[in-house]
Each structure stands twice: as structure tokens, then as C-alpha cells.
């Protein structure tokens, strides 16, 4: 046992260390937040919070050491808590790492057209934890940022237009009667496209004609609307069509 005056001194020093680490943590947090703000406010706040907690943690460890508690036992408990925290916050840590990657590497910007994994679409917003993408079908997909660390990102934004290929199937039709109609319908939708639509191929088999067309589209969300317009165009000519 320590003499009583020694215990009081240790308690005082430990309290001073704790107070110091508290203020130091606050100071470092505010400075770091300012420095990192160029990478986005959310990211700066979260990173500086993390650093602040780390300084507090070091302060508590030092305080425990000064009070001469059984360091071995305390260390084991702290390591266990840390491991538990890391495991439970694995996704948050990964998303934070991904956010750092997106903020520094900048592989894409808002409105860019990207393909990541199986998801392809236009970037609506880039957040601290996730990124919103609007797909061909107009669906809003929210992707956790950690996804970008695990999948290669293809940025397709160099060109304004995306070339979308459609398969048109005409049951019980003959090839010679269709060519003119397909050309006319493509001509009708041309004002909505970024350039000329292209008839890639047309073939007849088993009383069915199949045509493949390529459409240069800027806003891919209008694909459904365009296919409906094409179907209507064929119907007004008395032609039944299935578009995929």
C-alpha cells in the first residue's frame, strides 16, 4: 500500500492528466476539423471526433497507470473492448475508410455515369456513408461507400450519350414488310436522341422477325418512355412488337 499523502498526490496527477487530455482532445478536434474540411464537412467531423476519442482514451490509460491499478488486467479489458468495438463498428470503419478514398482519389463526381459491380447509373449524390445512384430504370439505389472499396469503378462520363441496345421482336411478320416501318419509327424518336439511332441487324426465323437497334441516349431514364413510344409507333402501323 502507498502512504496516504502519496495516494492523494497520485489522484491529483491522474485528475490533471484526465483534464489535460479532455482539453487537448477538444483543441485537436477543432484544428483537425478545420484542416480536413476541404474533404467535406461530414468526413472532417467524424475523423476529428475519432482522434478526440483516441486522445481521451490515451488520457484514461495514463490516468489508470498513474493510479497504479493492475495494468495487465486493465489492458486486457481495454483490448477486449477495442476489439468488440471494431467488430461491431466494422461497417462504419469501412465506410469511413471508403469516404477517405472517395474524397482523396475522387474516382467520380455527381452526375457522372459509373458502373460499379453490377450497378450502373448516374451519381445523384455522394454522402459520408453512402452514394445515391439512379439506374437505367430510374430506380434510386443507395450504395454504402464501403462497396466502392470492394469493386472496381468504371467511370463512363467522358461521353454525354449512352448507347442502349434494344431487341425488337415482331411475331408473324415478314422481313421485307418491316424494314420501312422500323426506319420510320426510329426516325420518329430521333429528336429525343443524341444523334442517329442505328439499326444493327434484322433477321427472320420461324415466322418471327428480330431486330437489334442502338439508341444514343443522354437521360437513360427516358428509355421506358421511348420504348412505349416505339411500340405505339408500330401499333399505329398495324404491327405488333415486343421490346426488350
Amino acid at each position, binding site marked *: 500500500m502507498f502512504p496516504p499523502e502519496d495516494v492523494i498526490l497520485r489522484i491529483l496527477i491522474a485528475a490533471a492528466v484526465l483534464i489535460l487530455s479532455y482539453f487537448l482532445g477538444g483543441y485537436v478536434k477543432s484544428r483537425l476539423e478545420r484542416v480536413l474540411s476541404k474533404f467535406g464537412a461530414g468526413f472532417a467531423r467524424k475523423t476529428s471526433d475519432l482522434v478526440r476519442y483516441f486522445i481521451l482514451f490515451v488520457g484514461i490509460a495514463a490516468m489508470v497507470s498513474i493510479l497504479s491499478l493492475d495494468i495487465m488486467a486493465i489492458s486486457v479489458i481495454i483490448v477486449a473492448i477495442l476489439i468488440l468495438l471494431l467488430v461491431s463498428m466494422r461497417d462504419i470503419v469501412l465506410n469511413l475508410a471508403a469516404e477517405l478514398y472517395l474524397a482523396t482519389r475522387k474516382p467520380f*463526381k*455527381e*452526375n457522372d455515369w459509373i458502373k460499379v459491380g453490377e450497378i450502373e447509373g*448516374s451519381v*445523384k449524390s455522394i454522402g459520408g456513408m453512402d452514394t445515391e445512384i*439512379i439506374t437505367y430504370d*430510374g430506380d434510386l439505389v443507395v450504395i454504402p461507400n464501403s462497396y466502392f472499396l470492394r469493386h472496381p469503378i468504371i467511370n463512363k462520363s*467522358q461521353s*454525354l450519350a449512352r448507347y442502349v441496345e434494344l431487341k425488337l421482336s415482331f411475331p408473324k411478320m415478314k422481313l421485307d414488310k418491316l424494314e420501312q416501318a422500323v426506319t420510320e419509327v426510329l426516325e420518329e424518336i*430521333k*429528336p*429525343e*436522341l*443524341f444523334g442517329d439511332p442505328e439499326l444493327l441487324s434484322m433477321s427472320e426465323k420461324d415466322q418471327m422477325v428480330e431486330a437489334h437497334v442502338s439508341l444514343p441516349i*443522354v*437521360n437513360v*431514364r*427516358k428509355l421506358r*418512355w421511348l420504348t412505349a413510344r416505339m411500340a405505339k409507333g408500330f401499333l399505329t402501323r398495324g404491327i405488333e412488337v415486343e421490346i426488350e
Partner: protein
Amino acid sequence: MRVLLIGGGHSAYFAANSIRGIDPNGKLIIIEFTSEKVEVLSKTFPFAEVVQQEIDGVESYIRSNASILDAVIAATESDSLNLRYCKTARENAVPLIIAILNNPMNEGIFAKEGVRHVINPYGIIPVELSEILGSATNIIYKTPSGSVMVASLRIEGEGELRKIRGKLRGSEDVSALLVSSSGEIKSSIEEADARGRLYLMGSEEKLRKILGSFRGRRR
């Protein structure tokens, strides 16, 4: 393409004619606020669909047509209205959003709100003045994507020509063209005269470095 042009003033007039030239078969919709201007615009731009809308009704028009609009060009005579419309278009994921500025000082505000394409009609003033008055360096054009730049540089002697030759040697990403003081145009600066104006086109990063090393010279 289906382009929505908002506004019926001078900027919109030039924008509408440009769009017609770029995409003659495209669908152009012009929104104007007053019935008198709508009438005039319908006659001036017979190829466009001119729609009259209340100032506060434009946003709902954008919202309800966002899925089929390829581009929104905000070209009204008010930057605050342009910003409002650009923000609505952005929130509704219109792929291409372009603002035409009335006050060049507002450029930063649009950029801060995430409007990537901001046209500053006044931006041409310093460029033209620099060429006319023969400034030491001049940035003539930067592509919207920011990767390619066109600039010009006044060459005043053999020393400067040697310096630029050294900087361009081995550069695959910059092309040069020298217009000598006698008006002769040379595509190779190795055989160019020592005086004239050098036009450079290439990577923005590289060109900025070159221009930086020539800045600070007196006129």
C-alpha cells in the same frame, strides 16, 4: 435531345439558336413568363415549343418532366431564378444542367450548389483584351471537363524561344503553333522566328506550368 431552355431574353436567344445549330432535329422547349414574349418567341423560334409558365410554376414543370429531359438551361435575366431552377433540375437528376450567368460575380455560388456547367458571357472580355493588347500570357479556352486548355504566349527573343523549346521537348500532351511578327504561321517551333505569338493546346496542368514560368514579364 430534349432540351428545356428557361428564359426569353438575350442569353436565351443566343442559346436557342446555338441549340438549333448543334441539334437540328432535337426537341427544344422554351419557357417564358410573359404572354407577349411567348408570342414573339414562337415567331422567332418556330422550331421550338414555347410554353408560358408562372415564375413559381417552372420548378413543378421541371419535376414532372425530369425523367425525359436531357438538359435544362437556365437563362433568365435573374441569377437567383436561374439558381433555383438549376437546383430543382439537380435534385431531380436531370443529366445536363447549364446556367447562363447575368452577373459574373455569382459564378462561385452556382459552383457551390453543384451546377457543373456555368457559362459566363463576360468571360470573353479579358481573353479578347489580352489578345488585342498583346499580353505576355493568355488563357484562351478551357474545356468544360477541365482537361484541355488553349493558351497563347508572347515570344520576345531567342532566349524565350529556347526556353519554351526546352519545356516542350518530349511533351506528348502539348501542341504548339507560332505566329511570327510578320504573320507567318509555323507548326514547328524548332524552325520558328524568335518573335511572335505562340499558341499552345494541350493538357491544362502542363500548360499552367509553362504559363507560370513566363508570367511576371513586363508588357
